[in-house]
């Protein structure tokens, strides 16, 4: 093997150029991240929101985007930065740092899988507040971080009542993304809501391993419909595909994230939808005032019917929901708001029939956040 001079020279040049550039970059490093770490985020000029999907997905990310626009309206002096399609990996940290470079000292990392990147950014920028939507920080919560979420499973329990009362085949279908506690709690609550009015109701689950993959959603919906499921619901970010598939097949739909009754005028039952505006506004106010450290948001903050401020609300009802079912839903919602109410009041049995939550126990929101098993009546295996 002979190596020509020109080749060697090119090689040398390439590596020299790379070294030089990397050198430049490191020489000018360490800008930012200075400032008063005692009151992170105080008086910030900009607020950033990162979303895992498109801001018009008829779902989760659209709800986030609409919430961000409420901030824009409520705080006209603030520069509201939004970034969509931000993946749940290290690139999310890059995008957040771009926002910091643009003056943001408060960032909402809104997808479950953004937590690792959010924590990394919070650690590197003590003057910036990073709040994450939906996940849970385990262990000590840093001074400039927190998570927040609504108890999504409470409205899903109510939607389960609508589904259980309306199904003819006693088979409900659930298309979900990942077996994370939030999703497991939704599925379990949905099934228990259905059981509360229809003991024969079972929920068949299919996982797509993606928050938004219309191809996989289509396949999952088709598979559920072929198993004689007549009510479809989902835990996906973009919801249109599954809803349209159900409507086309003449099945009923329970929506998620956003009111999609326009997509399913016949089959729409109800759904659980977000209204983030008020909670986002609270967080921004707290941070602007410099009061974030030690506040309720500087923790794993959860709201629900018990606190009276659930950002997750029940959407309007479709034609198939009977007056009787509506009355039951209404009563159940009031009951969930009391100390004795919960979708998971014991006894709760797992799929094998083992009692996991003892009779009479009312689990806390924090305990529901760590739910890791399917209840009896749910069909489908959880990865163990």
């Amino acid at each position: 093997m002979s190596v020509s001079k020109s080749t060697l020279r090119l090689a040398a040049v390439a590596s020299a150029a790379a070294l030089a550039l990397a050198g430049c970059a490191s020489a000018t490093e360490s800008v930012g991240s200075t400032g008063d770490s005692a009151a992170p985020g105080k008086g910030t000029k900009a607020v950033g929101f990162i979303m895992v999907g498109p801001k018009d997905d008829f779902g989760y990310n659209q709800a986030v985007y609409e919430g961000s626009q409420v901030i824009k309206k409520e705080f006209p002096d603030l520069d509201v930065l939004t970034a969509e399609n931000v993946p749940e990996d290290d690139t999310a940290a890059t995008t957040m740092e771009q926002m910091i470079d643009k003056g943001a000292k408060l960032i909402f990392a809104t997808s479950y899988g953004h937590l690792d990147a959010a924590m990394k950014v919070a650690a590197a920028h003590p003057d910036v507040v990073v709040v994450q939507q939906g996940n849970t920080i385990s262990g000590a919560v840093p001074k400039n971080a927190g998570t927040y979420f609504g108890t999504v499973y409470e409205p899903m329990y109510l939607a389960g009542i609508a589904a259980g009362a309306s199904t003819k085949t006693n088979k409900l279908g659930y298309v979900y993304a990942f077996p994370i506690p939030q999703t497991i709690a939704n599925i379990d609550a949905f099934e228990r809501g259905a059981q509360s009015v229809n003991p024969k109701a079972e929920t068949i689950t299919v996982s797509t391993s993606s928050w938004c993959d219309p191809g996989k959603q289509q396949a999952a919906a088709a598979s559920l419909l072929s198993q004689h499921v007549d009510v479809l619901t989902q835990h996906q970010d973009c919801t249109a595909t599954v809803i349209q598939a159900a409507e086309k097949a003449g099945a009923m739909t329970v929506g998620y994230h956003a009111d999609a009754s326009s997509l399913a005028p016949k089959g729409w039952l109800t759904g659980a939808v977000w209204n983030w505006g008020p909670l986002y506004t609270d967080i921004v106010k707290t941070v602007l005032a410099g009061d974030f450290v030690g506040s309720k948001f500087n923790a794993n903050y959860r709201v629900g019917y018990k606190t009276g401020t659930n950002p997750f609300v029940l959407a309007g009802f479709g034609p198939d929901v009977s007056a009787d079912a509506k009355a039951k839903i209404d009563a159940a919602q009031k009951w969930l708001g009391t100390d004795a109410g919960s979708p998971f009041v014991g006894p709760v049995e797992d799929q094998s029939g083992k009692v996991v939550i003892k009779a009479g126990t009312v689990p806390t929101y924090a305990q529901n956040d760590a739910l890791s098993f399917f209840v009896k009546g749910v069909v489908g295996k959880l990865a163990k």
Partner: protein
Amino acid sequence: MTAITSADLTGSNPAPVAVRLLKLLPGLGRWVLAIAAALAIFSVLLAVKNVNPVDAYSKMIDSTFNRPRSVQEIFVQMTPLVLGALAVAVPARAGLTNVGGEGQIIIGAVAACGTSLMLGDSAPGGLIIAAMLVASMVAGALWAGLAAALRLVAGVNEAISTLLLNFIALDVLLYLIYQPWRDNPVGQPTTKELVDTAKLPVVAAGNKVHIGLFIALGLVVAVHLLLNRTRWGFRISVAGGNAEAARRAGLNVGVLVISALMIGGALAGLAGMIHFAGVEYKLRPGFGNQLGYTSFLACWLARHQPFPIVVAALVFATLSVAGDSLQLDSGLPGSSVNVLTALILLAVLGFTTKRKVSRS
């Protein structure tokens, strides 16, 4: 990059380099023209979206090149693209289309992760890194070897088999992070984070650029030499040009096909390891995030030539970082950067094709 390159060149050896650069000019001119055309078309789209193009571009340039963090990010993102593109270039020389970078990258990262889990946290960092490097290359090579074997035994076109193997690789990854390797039984399915000693060292404290960049650039040179200065490189190009002629000339085309595709796979596997140990530190459901397909495009942009691959990877990485600016500075949708990337790709491939036709 050009500025530094030419300065270095004139400093070391002025005369022949000037000649070399002059020869490059017409090609370079076409490139510049192509990119300018793409930007012009994109300007129209910007204007339709009520964004002032001049404003958008100047902000994009500012936030992409004037911020140290962005510049570092470009190099970080470029690294696996270089390797992924080389993984397409080597088989391409043998007339093979490797669309399986995505899967080979995932399998490489899986092998690296498995190796680190097997060795445990207490093993010396250098050993873990070395073992991960080897394991990822072997795994990537074997994964690509499957496609090569299918081609030789059953006549399956490798463009199809490598592509389909991507989906299997993703399922393997998902199985592993959902079950045996899952760090936390509740929460997002991921593996546990790599120990600090097993992470690829960065060039300077606080800098994101890691040594993977130099491994990648070193391999650009190595692949260049392999393709252009070795008997093997010559043979695969003969086999790629006309397999029948190669066979009659006494070359073992089967071995050449297998080896070219497996070397490609090894390079992609390494890209996976470097992305895993240099950036992500955990395997997540979306690991790689289309790296393989982007690399494939980068390789075509570079016309399968090792040194231009560096430029193409740099272009793609820059565009990816610049995408944030389009959203944050100009309020454009997140997908606009994909439109810009596609325009640049089409323009460059379209405007510079002549050169290839006249050469061949």
